[in-house]
């Protein structure tokens, strides 16, 4: 019966997307090619050959991550390197994409896997792997287009423009980067789309059916993640203060405080409340089965996070360099402060404390890393070591919700904190020219950064993010619950999800 349901699901998926494919190609052919697609065959023909000075200027633009002479919509002159990615920037972005995937596989998988009981370790790994494949298919089919295609609405991208990654080639998409291949950019962003629902697993670990996890994640990506990512990072997104001159909420989020951590963290809380606590929660011991795996995973998360944060500059430039530094400082300080807080309050600094602090520091610096300086990142590190520590240690026991691995305590609290602190600590001293660039001048962000008041815009973005995550999650969870049910039977939960859901065991006695 279960197998039949799965097969039906696959057939439904393929038949549903089949016609879209045809439509996608049809519409793409009929839309006039925009200047934002440098490889467009029609555009270069009308342009004059560049002179030597222009050609040198184009090379300088590569060094400084600026636009080629031919990149402007009304450019009269062509470029010898039209549609060519810059090798240095491209190399860094391919490295960064791999680093961000490394955060999920196996970083997050081990970080979470070590924290569950041994009978459920494989279920966490399977969920991370399953999400990676599922989200990749969604991203290829329409996800990338739905987030990053321009000429769309302030709320979501164009469903069909880049559907099936049609037209996404090694040529850069000037909307997002002049020197990074669009196929690299789309894969880089895919890794963010993979880890975000992966974070939710932490709250619902050890007690959700695998099929329910997959269905929930598929719907959640479409309803919550894709629109939110477009609003914050899409070139015409309504909350993209740095790039959209017409942004209605002039917020900034460098690497995903709202898009990744707040959305997953708040959704995780809602889902774990709807799901209910693990059977035996509060009565039985549920200690981590391997703090060693957890620490190994933490180290991988930290290393991978350089791709996440410094890579979000979408260039190997000075902004990336600054983000690299601020990320390091915040993570190290928060790790130290969290363990220190435990030492003071409970008498012992724990490995889980160091690990939790490092992740919390990375979460909180995420939206800020490209907009703050060294001092700002140290402030963020200290606060990130204290506030999520208090949330995990006192808020959770007080309200007695079973956020199994503290997705809410670390990612929602941390992401929310980070979004707000970004509004207070963002400074032109970070060297990020986008804060006072043309778009920021047009929508008023530049004035908010220099004169203060950015935090109010950040509050608006935070409110919208929480609303979308909470309402979306309630709706999706209730539908999935009605269709396939969320929880395994008590016997299955008792036995562990590894054997009953995946037919395997993580460890065998010799």
């Amino acid at each position, binding site marked *: 019966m279960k197998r039949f349901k799965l097969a039906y699901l696959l057939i439904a998926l393929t038949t549903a997307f089949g016609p879209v494919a045809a439509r996608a190609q049809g519409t793409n052919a009929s839309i006039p090619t925009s200047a934002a697609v440098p490889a467009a065959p029609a555009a270069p023909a009308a342009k004059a050959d560049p002179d030597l000075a222009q050609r040198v200027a184009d090379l300088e633009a590569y060094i400084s991550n600026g636009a080629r002479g031919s990149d402007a919509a009304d450019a009269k002159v062509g470029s010898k390197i039209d549609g060519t990615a810059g090798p240095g920037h491209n190399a860094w972005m391919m490295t960064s994409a791999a680093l961000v995937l490394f955060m999920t596989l196996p970083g997050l998988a081990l970080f979470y896997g070590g924290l569950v009981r041994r009978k459920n370790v494989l279920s966490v790994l399977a969920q991370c792997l399953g999400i990676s494949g599922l989200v990749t298919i969604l991203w290829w089919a329409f996800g990338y287009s739905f987030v990053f295609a321009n000429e769309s609405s302030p709320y979501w991208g164009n469903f069909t423009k880049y559907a099936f990654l049609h037209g996404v080639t090694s040529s850069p998409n000037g909307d997002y980067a002049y020197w990074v291949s669009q196929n690299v950019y789309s894969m880089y962003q895919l890794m963010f789309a993979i880890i975000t629902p992966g974070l939710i697993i932490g709250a619902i670990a050890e007690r959700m059916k695998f099929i329910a996890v997959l269905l929930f994640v598929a719907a959640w990506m479409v309803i919550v993640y894709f629109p939110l990512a477009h609003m914050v990072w899409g070139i015409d997104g309504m909350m993209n203060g740095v790039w959209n001159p017409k942004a209605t909420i002039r917020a900034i989020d460098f690497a995903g405080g709202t898009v990744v951590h707040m959305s997953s963290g708040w959704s995780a809380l809602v889902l774990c409340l709807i799901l209910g606590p693990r059977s035996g929660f509060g009565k039985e*011991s*549920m200690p981590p089965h391997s703090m060693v795996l957890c620490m190994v995973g933490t180290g991988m998360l930290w290393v991978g996070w350089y791709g996440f944060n410094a890579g979000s500059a979408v260039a190997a430039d000075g902004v990336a360099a600054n983000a690299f530094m601020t990320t390091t400082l915040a993570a190290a300080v928060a790790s130290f402060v969290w363990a220190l807080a435990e030492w003071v309050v409970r008498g012992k600094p724990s490995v889980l404390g160091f690990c939790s602090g490092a992740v919390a520091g990375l979460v909180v610096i995420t939206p800020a890393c490209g907009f703050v300086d060294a001092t700002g990142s140290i402030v963020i590190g200290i606060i990130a070591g204290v506030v999520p520590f208090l949330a995990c240690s006192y808020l959770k*026991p007080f309200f007695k919700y079973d956020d199994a691995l503290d997705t809410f*305590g670390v990612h929602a609290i941390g992401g929310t904190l980070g979004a707000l602190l970004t509004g207070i600590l963002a400074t032109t001293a970070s060297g990020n020219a986008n804060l006072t660039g043309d778009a920021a001048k047009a929508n008023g962000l530049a004035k908010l950064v220099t004169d203060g008041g950015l935090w109010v815009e950040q509050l608006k973005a935070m409110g919208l993010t929480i609303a979308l995550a909470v309402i979306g999650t309630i709706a999706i969870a209730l539908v999935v619950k009605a269709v396939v049910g969320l929880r395994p039977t008590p016997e299955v939960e008792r036995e562990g999800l590894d054997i009953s859901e995946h037919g395997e065991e993580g460890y065998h006695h010799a």
Partner: protein
Amino acid sequence: MKKIEAIIKPFKLEEVKDALQDVGIQGMTVSEVKGFGRQKGHTEIYRGSEYTVDFLPKIKLEIVVDAGKVAEAVSAIINAAKTGKIGDGKIFVSNVDEAIRIRTEERGPGAL
């Protein structure tokens, strides 16, 4: 023949083994076990969650000796394993009906 089972603190294993070898004990069987006596367990805290761990790791050492060697072996174990603190463990002595060396099929004390 007597079987001596000793539950000891894990870090004392090497000293106990050496002491038993010094009094001429030829072989022994060791297992990692968990349990509690008067020492009780301890508390572990993982972020907001506090767990009481009742069972502490211990080593169980089993040897079978000729009845005449029991007193010597027991005092060797006591001398080596004692710290004077709670949780040092216990020793149980019981009768053994038969012992067989599989390779040669020798029986009785000669098989030990």
